C-alpha cells in the first residue's frame, strides 16, 4: 500500500485524467441538497460537504432499474438488457464504502445478482476521509474510523494544502500509474499529519452506540413491549429505509404499454404495511411495532446471524432525517439494557 501526496490544485487535473476513460460521479450541490451525480468538469464538484443526502448506494442499486425488456401479453418475448457501466465514484465517505462491502453479502452467494455485481466490478472508489464528522456520525462504534481505507481503492485525506493519498487496491494502482506525474511520494511528516487529522476527526465523534452481544440480547426481547413504545411514534414513511446505505430491499414490478414493456426493480420500504400484505389480505406484520422491530432486527440480528456483520455503518442519515426523531443509536443502546 504505497503512500503519496497530491497537491490540492492538482486535484482538477486528476479528475480530468479520470474523465478521459470513464464516467466520474462526485458530490454535487443543487440548492441545499448534496447528491452523487455525474460530473463533466472538475469545477462541478462540491467538497465542503458532510455527506450526501442520498447515499452512493443509489449508484450501485439504482432506485429504478430495468431488469429486462419484453413484449407483453400471452404471446410475449424477452430481450435482455446490457449491463456494463464503467464508472469512478469520487469523494465517497469511508462509511458509505463499507456499506458496499455489506451489500456484497446479499447480492452474491448461491444466486449472483448480475446487475449489482457488474456495477461493483466496473467501479473505482476514490474515498475522501471526513475531516469534520457530523452530530450523528457514529462510525467509531463499529471500530471504523472517518479515515478508514479498508473498503476504497484510493483514499485521500485532507492534510492542509495537500491530499495524503493511500492506494489500496490494484484498481487504484492503475489510476495512480495513469496519472503518475501528479503524485509525489509522501514523507514521514505527511504520514504524521494524516494520523493527526484522523485523530482529530475521531475525537469530534461524540455519540457512540453500545452493540456488545447485541445479537443475543435481541434474541431475548423479541416479544417485549419495548418495541411497541419505540414504534408508537413511527409514521411508516420511507425516509430511513431509502436513505440508509445498507438497506437493500426492493420490489419487482412490470411496466408496459400495449406494444412493449419491461420488468423493473425499485427500492421498497419495509415500514409500509403494503410491503408484506398477502393477496388474501392477511399481513404477517400488521402493526408499526412489528415493522420497526423487523428493521432493527434485520440490521442487528438477522444480518449478523446470516453474514456475521452488523448491517449498519454509523452514517447517521436515518437519525438526521427521521420526521419524529426515532434515533437508532438510542433505540439499540436502550434495547441492550431492556430486561427480558
Amino acid at each position, binding site marked *: 500500500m504505497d503512500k503519496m501526496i497530491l497537491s490540492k490544485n492538482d486535484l482538477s487535473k486528476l479528475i480530468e485524467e479520470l474523465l478521459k476513460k470513464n464516467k466520474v460521479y462526485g458530490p454535487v450541490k443543487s440548492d441545499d441538497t448534496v447528491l452523487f451525480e455525474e460530473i463533466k468538469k472538475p469545477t462541478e464538484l462540491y467538497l465542503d460537504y458532510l455527506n450526501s443526502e442520498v447515499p452512493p448506494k443509489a449508484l450501485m442499486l439504482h432506485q429504478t432499474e430495468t431488469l429486462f425488456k419484453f413484449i407483453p401479453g400471452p404471446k410475449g418475448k424477452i430481450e435482455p438488457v446490457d449491463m456494463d457501466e464503467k464508472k469512478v465514484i469520487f469523494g465517497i465517505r469511508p462509511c458509505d464504502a463499507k456499506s458496499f462491502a455489506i451489500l456484497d453479502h446479499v447480492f452474491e452467494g448461491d444466486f449472483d445478482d448480475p446487475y449489482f455485481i457488474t456495477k461493483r466490478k466496473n467501479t473505482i472508489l476514490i474515498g475522501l476521509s471526513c475531516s469534520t464528522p457530523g452530530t450523528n456520525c457514529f462510525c467509531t462504534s463499529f471500530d471504523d474510523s472517518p479515515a478508514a481505507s479498508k473498503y476504497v481503492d484510493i483514499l485521500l485525506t485532507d492534510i492542509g494544502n495537500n491530499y495524503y493519498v493511500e492506494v489500496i487496491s490494484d484498481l487504484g494502482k492503475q489510476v495512480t500509474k495513469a496519472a503518475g506525474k501528479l503524485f509525489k511520494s509522501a514523507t514521514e511528516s505527511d504520514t504524521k499529519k494524516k494520523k493527526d487529522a484522523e485523530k482529530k476527526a475521531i475525537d469530534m465523534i461524540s455519540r457512540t452506540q453500545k452493540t456488545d452481544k447485541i445479537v443475543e440480547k435481541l434474541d431475548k426481547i423479541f416479544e417485549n413491549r419495548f418495541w411497541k413504545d419505540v414504534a408508537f411514534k413511527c409514521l411508516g414513511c420511507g425516509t430511513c429505509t431509502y436513505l440508509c446505505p445498507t438497506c437493500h430491499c426492493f420490489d419487482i*414490478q412490470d411496466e408496459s404499454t400495449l406494444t412493449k414493456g419491461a420488468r423493473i426493480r425499485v427500492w421498497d420500504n419495509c415500514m409500509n404495511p403494503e410491503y408484506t400484505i398477502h393477496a388474501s389480505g392477511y399481513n404477517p406484520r400488521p402493526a408499526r411495532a412489528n415493522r420497526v422491530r423487523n428493521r432493527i432486527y434485520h440490521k442487528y440480528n438477522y444480518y449478523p446471524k446470516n453474514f456475521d456483520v452488523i448491517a449498519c455503518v454509523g452514517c447517521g442519515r436515518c437519525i438526521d432525517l427521521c420526521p419524529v*426523531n426515532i434515533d437508532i443509536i438510542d433505540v439499540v443502546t436502550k434495547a441492550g439494557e431492556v430486561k427480558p
Partner: protein
Amino acid sequence: MVDEKELREAVEKTVKRDDVKYVVGYEKGTYGFQVTPCFAYKSEDADKFIFSPLCVHNLAVFPMLEEKPPLRRGEEPDKRKVGVVVKGCDSRAIVQIIQEKGLDREKVVILGIPCTGVVDPKKLEAKFPGKTKNAEIKDDNDKFAITIDGKTSKIAKDELMPDKCKTCEYPTPVLYDILIGKEIKGSKKENYKEIESFEKKSLKDKWQYWEKQFEKCIRCYACRNSCPLCYCKECMVDQLDPQWVRRSVDVSENTAWNLLRAFHLAGRCIGCGQCERVCPMDIPLMKLNKKIEKEIKEMFKYTAGVNAEEKPLLAMFKPDDPEDFIL
C-alpha cells in the same frame, strides 16, 4: 410563554380519567435541538412533557394512526379516548378531520396551547450547525432565547420562524377541551406574497422550476405519512389493480404523485407545514398547498379547518361557482 407545569398538570388530569387511553405530547429529543412526540399512559409519564418553540410536529396525525388489531372472539374493542396536545395550526387539522367525519369529536381530548411561533429546524440548523448535547430554546416574547452549553443568545423571531408562523391567523387553537395559558388574539394576515411573485413567472419558467424539484423526489412518502389529513386506508399510489401511478421514480411519475397529493389536500390542507419540514430532499411542497389555499379562498370563499359543521369544499357546491373556463 407557556407554563410547562400547567401543561403537565393538565396532561396528568387527562390521563387519570378512565375514559382516556393515552395522551400524545412533546418531549426532549435525543440530540441537539431535537424534540420528539411522546405518549403518557400513566400519570407519572406526564412529567416528561415539554412545550417550547422547537415543538414543530403536528400531533394531530396520531389519533388517525390508531391501529385496530383483530379481536379475539368476544373481546370488546377499546373505545377509550385519545388526548392530543395541539398548537393553533394543529388544532385546525383536527377540526378538518372532524368536518370530514374521519374522526368523531368525543374520540379526542384536545389540550390546546396558544402558540407564539415555532422555529424552522432547517433555518436553525443553518445558523447553529452540529449542536449535540444540551441545547434548548425559550420564547422571549418577540425574540428566541437560545441556550447552548450554558451560553444564551437572543435572535429576532423573524430570522428563525417558518413562513407559516409569520402569517399565522390562528395562534389560539380553534377547538379545545382544556386551554393551557391565556388566549392570544390573531393579529397577522396571510397575504400569499410569495405565491403571487411566483405566479408572475412564465409557464416555461414555472415548469423548469418544478421539474428540477420533482426530479429530486425519491417517493419516500414522508410528506404523506406526516400529514394529518392523509389518512386514507389505501393510498392511490399503493393501488395495483388498476395502477394509476407507477412505482418507477422519474419525472413523470413524481410529477403525477406531487400534483395528486396537492390536489387531494385541496380545501383540506391547513398549512401546518409538516410536509415541507419532513421532506428529505427539501422540495418546497407548501408552495403547492398555499397556491390552492389562495385559489379556493378567492373562488369559493372557503377556509379549511375552521368550522367543523361546514361541509367539505369538494363535497358541496354553490350555483354561482365560477365557470368562466367552461365552453
